């Protein structure tokens, strides 16, 4: 067994227009897309939204396979949703198998729901696929900043994300080391039932937690020694710039989304 060396945030570097947009533009447009997806009813609207997502995916030059990968974890939910709609929605009969009655309405609503969820996942994955985690965190911090007056800890959330991103590879490496050390002492992580396998994880998780807490403690001292005192008065090396391209893309997308919402 080996701990996978994950690429976090699944960012795929590139220099397409989508890659170069300000992260705030991308996050906000993805949000607008989500809102549009949940307001529209007509198949024409769905078609327009699907065309927009397809155009965005193609222009980003991110492999379509990568964009669709975001669907894998929810594939089961998609199928379940479709089947439930198909057989449970009242309406005109389509066919019947073993006392289960599928309806035309069910088929239509089921399909549209699947399309809606698929487009939603694709649009949001496209943001993380074309934005490096650091830039994404920066964008999120700046977007949430105004919400500080209502108590949203914008800077702290962004700092937590940064530290998590920073330490995931370190902790994975450490997990791998501990597992190898335990295996060298005869530990077995692969055989036995679920209970046994869960039990065999304890000698890994305990040292991992102990070390994680020690790391957190040392990191806190190191950050204080470098004058860290929260977000106040802090400047940033990287400046986000909302440029002309952002304005044009944002305006065009909003107009298009509005048209998609009103079309019948």
């Amino acid at each position: 067994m080996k701990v996978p060396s994950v690429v976090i945030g699944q960012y795929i570097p590139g220099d397409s227009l989508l890659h170069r947009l300000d992260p705030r533009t991308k996050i906000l447009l993805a949000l607008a897309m989500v809102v549009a997806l949940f307001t529209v009813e007509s198949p024409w609207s769905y078609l327009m939204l699907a065309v927009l997502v397809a155009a965005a995916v193609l222009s980003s030059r991110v492999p379509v396979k990568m964009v669709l990968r975001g669907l894998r974890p929810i594939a089961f939910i998609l199928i379940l949703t479709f089947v439930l709609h198909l057989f449970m929605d009242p309406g005109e009969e389509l066919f019947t198998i073993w006392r289960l009655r599928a309806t035309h309405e069910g088929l239509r609503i089921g399909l549209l729901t699947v399309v809606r969820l698929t487009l939603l996942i694709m649009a949001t994955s496209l943001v993380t696929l074309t934005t490096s985690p650091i830039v994404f965190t920066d964008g999120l911090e700046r977007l949430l900043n105004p919400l500080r007056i209502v108590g949203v800890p914008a800077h702290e959330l962004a700092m937590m994300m940064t530290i998590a991103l920073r330490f995931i590879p370190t902790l994975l490496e450490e997990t791998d080391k501990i597992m190898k050390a335990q295996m060298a002492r005869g530990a077995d992580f692969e055989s036995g039932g679920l209970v046994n396998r869960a039990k065999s994880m304890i000698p890994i998780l305990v040292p991992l937690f102990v070390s994680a807490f020690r790391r957190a403690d040392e990191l806190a001292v190191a950050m204080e020694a470098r004058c860290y005192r929260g977000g106040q008065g802090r400047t940033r090396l990287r400046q986000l710039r909302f440029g002309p391209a952002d304005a044009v893309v944002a305006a065009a997308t909003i107009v298009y989304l509005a048209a998609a919402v009103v079309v019948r």
Partner: protein
Amino acid sequence: MEPIISIENVSYAYEGGEQDRVDALLDVNVRVDAGEFVAIIGHNGSGKSTLAKHMNAILLPTRGDVYVLGMNTRDRSKLWSIRQAVGMVFQNPDNQIVATTVEEDVAFGPENLGVPPDEIRRRVDEALALVDMTGYEQAAPHQLSGGQKQRVAIAGVIAMRPRCIVLDEATAMLDPVGRQEVLRTVRRLASEEGIAVVHITHFMSEAVLADRVIVMDDGRIALEGAPREVFSQPDVLRQLQLDVPQVTELALELARKGVRMPRTPLTVQELAADIHALLGGCAG
């Protein structure tokens, strides 16, 4: 000249419960001047880290005072000026790098100080050049070797424009190559940039490179002086549970066997030169 750091009659006790009071420092006096390279050695638990943490107000003395550029570390209003003036590099390189890329991490200190973006950029580039890490701006910390990570940590401190850098066993977890890299870097900072360096180490071969060696023992300063002075007292050092450098050991052994060594050599080069001179004298 005003000292960078002046530690005056400082005692420090870690307060545990009622009984577990640990006196980690007892009446310690240390002065660090600009551009000086000071090594601190001492056995485990002798109070080196505790002393280091007093140098930039991570700990405040139980008794006595610490001054950084004349500012008392008890003065809360000077806290950030003090931490800007004295930077710290710790033992575990992994646990002091905050950001996900090298340049972002080096920028962390200046960002906290509120330095304007263009100026941060300039400082990051300069600092990375000083530690020979130009070209690694976008690298992720986990892609670097131990020595490289420590040099990034040093760059992160340099970018804050400090007057002194304190390294608390910063070479302890590195391989010989990494140790060399770090040591070369900090020596250059002291000699060329005029930044004082306080290097805590348990490698005697590193301590001999310092201008001054401070030996700690159970919270007190047991010995202080130029490396040659300190290391020519092997019996005292052994009592303090410390070794003398291997070269020095060899020279002292030769002296015991009747070879008349002209001085206490501290490095291989010195010993080689001395033996060469001796042989040259005989074989002529």
